[in-house]
């Protein structure tokens, strides 16, 4: 069974601080996606990484895929209150199309 473990599960920080969220597995994934979800809405894709060691930047967000394609991280620089939400990583399998989600990291950024 493929599992994705996210840490921390909950993070409360002040505006302007930096943070990193981790997504780890013992399984290899063909791709790793990061989503952000707000209350009452479905998750919205932030980024997809497919190559081991790949780093992608989206404004203040930096995403990294581990060399072995088993883990990933999301780093946010100078967090803003608008970054508040549930952050989810999801691992994809190229042969099945199935996408498995981690349990999520709830981020609260206080003004």
């Amino acid at each position: 069974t493929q599992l994705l473990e996210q840490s921390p599960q909950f993070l409360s920080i002040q505006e302007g601080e930096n943070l990193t969220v981790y997504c780890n597995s013992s399984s290899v994934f063909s791709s790793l996606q990061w989503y952000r979800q707000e209350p009452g809405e479905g998750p919205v894709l932030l980024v997809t990484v497919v190559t081991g060691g790949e780093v992608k930047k989206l404004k203040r967000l930096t995403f990294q895929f581990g060399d072995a394609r088993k883990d990933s991280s999301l780093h946010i620089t100078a967090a803003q209150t608008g970054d508040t939400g549930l952050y989810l990583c999801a691992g994809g399998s190229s042969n099945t199309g199935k996408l498995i989600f981690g349990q999520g990291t709830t981020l609260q950024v206080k003004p």
Partner: protein
Amino acid sequence: GAGVSQTPSNKVTEKGKYVELRCDPISGHTALYWYRQSLGQGPEFLIYFQGTGAADDSGLPNDRFFAVRPEGSVSTLKIQRTERGDSAVYLCASSKTGTNEKLFFGSGTQLSVL
């Protein structure tokens, strides 16, 4: 439509009743997913369709849960003899081909079993 549409947005039912949840995916998307989500947790995979067929139904918790997609577009998730533990948000998502692609999610159906 422009996005994934799920109806109803809220469903309250009594223990033991039968419910149907509907999902209208983005037009032309061949892959359709159903997930279940509890508050503050990640979505739990239920079933994945490629076209009309269920490519992977390994996440369905038991035989009370069943899903169909007869024409390769709209999908219905059916739950028989509902239990209080079935209460959750049921999310539907679609993607163009289903392999390492972006999933577009609906806003979900909040199911409450009393």
